[in-house]
């Protein structure tokens, strides 16, 4: 188990010493009990740093902003950014390194281990504690969480309220780090793609109906894309709102820009948006499930990305975010790659 004081001390060391510009971590919100992302610029700010099972945000997405910010500065501060990462998050850092989006010296990784449990799923917590007001959730040494409500403390088995993705987790502790807090444990889930079984057993028609219903709800808020650390393209191909336009972009180029997806949130446009985004994440998604958490209308986006992760593994024996030396899945070709789907 990670001792919060140790994490704070490590963080303070690098911030005080000037090794890092600032640290991206977690803090308690103004109201409620779920941790929120926070930026710590001064060592004394770190007193507010927290580490508990509500730290489910994947903070790697803020490395995108850091890079874009530096690009806009004349004399950027080249020191690395300190970032608190969990196991799944660390693989996201690896994907960014593998794709040369950031350099290793741009990040100082404070790795924290989730131990035997993982992160809670907010919807499950709410359902379990129907109506009760929760103030705190803590890790325990064994496989349970301690939840503090206005009525006292309750010990809850982790399996009851932790996130689906944590049931299939294989990296309970960061695979890349400058500092590691907590035990370096590896999990071997029995069925790493078990959550897909129910869906895979549906008929083609049932699958179509399922996704019709789900994707009709989509309001194209783009939260799923904005919160994904891998969606860093300046100009997204399935987005009609962000264009990389500069003062010297010729008029013809702007005029000929193809609108692949209309702005209207109709079911067919939503299908294109989500399917294309999922395919662009094949071999890149680390299953942090932030997209599903961020979705305000509860679309089970994790299924789409997890399925492609499974295909990547089964067809190409590719694991996402473990080895930064190997080329990215979609930008490489090996002679032994299967060809039976090419007709």
């Amino acid at each position, binding site marked *: 188990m990670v001792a919060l004081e140790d994490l704070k001390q490590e963080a303070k060391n690098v911030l005080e010493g000037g090794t890092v510009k600032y640290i991206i971590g977690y803090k308690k919100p103004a*109201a*409620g009990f779920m941790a929120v992302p926070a*930026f710590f610029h001064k060592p004394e700010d770190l007193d507010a740093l927290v580490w508990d099972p509500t730290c489910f945000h994947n903070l790697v997405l803020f490395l995108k902003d850091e890079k874009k910010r530096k690009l806009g500065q004349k004399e950027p501060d080249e020191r690395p950014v300190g970032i608190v990462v969990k196991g799944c998050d660390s693989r996201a850092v690896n994907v960014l390194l593998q794709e040369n989006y950031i350099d290793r010296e741009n990040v100082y990784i404070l790795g924290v281990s989730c131990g035997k449990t993982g992160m809670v799923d907010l919807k499950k917590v*709410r359902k379990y504690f129907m109506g009760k007001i929760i103030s705190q959730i803590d890790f325990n040494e064994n496989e349970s969480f301690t939840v503090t409500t206005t009525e006292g403390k309750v010990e809850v088995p982790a399996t009851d309220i932790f996130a689906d993705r944590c049931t299939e987790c294989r990296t309970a502790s960061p695979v890349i780090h400058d500092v590691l807090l907590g035990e370096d444990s590896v999990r071997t889930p029995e069925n790493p793609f078990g959550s897909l079984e129910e869906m895979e057993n549906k008929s083609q028609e049932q699958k179509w109906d399922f996704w019709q219903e789900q994707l009709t709800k989509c309001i194209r*808020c783009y939260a799923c*894309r904005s919160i994904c650390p891998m969606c860093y393209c300046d100009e997204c191909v399935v987005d009609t709102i962000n264009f990389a336009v500069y003062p010297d972009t010729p008029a013809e180029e702007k005029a000929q820009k193809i609108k692949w997806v209309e702005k209207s949130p109709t079911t067919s446009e939503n299908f294109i948006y989500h399917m294309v985004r999922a395919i662009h994440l094949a071999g890149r998604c680390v299953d942090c499930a932030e997209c599903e958490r961020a979705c305000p209308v509860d679309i089970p986006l994790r299924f789409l990305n997890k399925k492609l992760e499974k295909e990547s593994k089964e067809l190409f024996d590719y694991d996402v975010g473990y080895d930064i030396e190997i080329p990215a899945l979609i930008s490489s070709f090996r002679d032994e790659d299967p060809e039976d789907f090419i007709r």
Partner: protein
Amino acid sequence: MRKLNVYQIYAPVKKESHWSYEALDKPESIRLDHLNTIQSPKMIIFPQREVFFEFHNAEGNTPVMKEPASEPSATVIFGVRPCDAVGVTHQDKVFNGDFKDLYYWKRRNQTILVGLACDTPPSPHCFCLSVGGSPHFTAGFDILMTELEDFYYVESFSKKGDTLINLAGDIFSTPKENSKKDKEKAHSDSEKKLKRHIKNLETVPPKLKNMFDSPLWEEESLSCIQCGICTYLCPTCHCFDISDELDSSSPLSGKRVRTWDNCQFPDFTMHSSGHNPRPDRASRLRQRIMHKFNYFVTNYQAYQCTGCGRCIAKCPVGIDIIEVLEKVRDYGK
């Protein structure tokens, strides 16, 4: 409900983890134990996609434009919370004025809002009392229902509401003498249950007038991911885009369509030349707060916020508008 079958009825329906307004065809499926819907009635009265007209080229390449033929039907939105009804009244102000938005008003005039007073706050982040509302506020409602022990106390505030009540006939009976007192007690009790408040919010609009260049906006917007959740779920936000959707380019045919848009998207204000008056998150967060708590206040004498708390509950990175307002209020102290 059966007696209301001349109306298109929308009511809250439970999905897996949230409530949502849906068109109802089975009166039995109406439930009134909902908290609040994920989207406000804005999605029905000011829908996310509205076809302005269809166009095609006629003889001699003359453009012909045709407005949608279908007329909106008389609609009842059932189970609306007071914060959302106030949101509708704010949208009414925007779409009125020198240029009335006829698409909006055609629908709005046919809509009857039947509300349910909140006995407990639907969200831990409700703060309606701080922005001039309350769990039993009547603005915007045609009918408001308050749940008492054995029955609902129902009040009508408009002709549309009266029509509905008359249609329902003998479902309603005259309230007993002390029912009114019970209702008023229920209302004042509900106010005490609100957990979150912003003290002295009235000091914020004047303070904001001098905070355009404050570094506060940069600090508060660091984690914003520029999605559309806060604005799309907000009952009062109304920004939109107009675009042409082609069905065929030759012969030309398509539709001109209005869709919701959002001042938090990076390219919202970008000019074709590449110049963007609001190029960063700080300026966009500032715009959101300024518009809701400064400009709208000056123009319409009301906060453009109803305290529904959706933006706080659903922000994926935990940006809390109450926290930001409190920082504005206390800035420099």
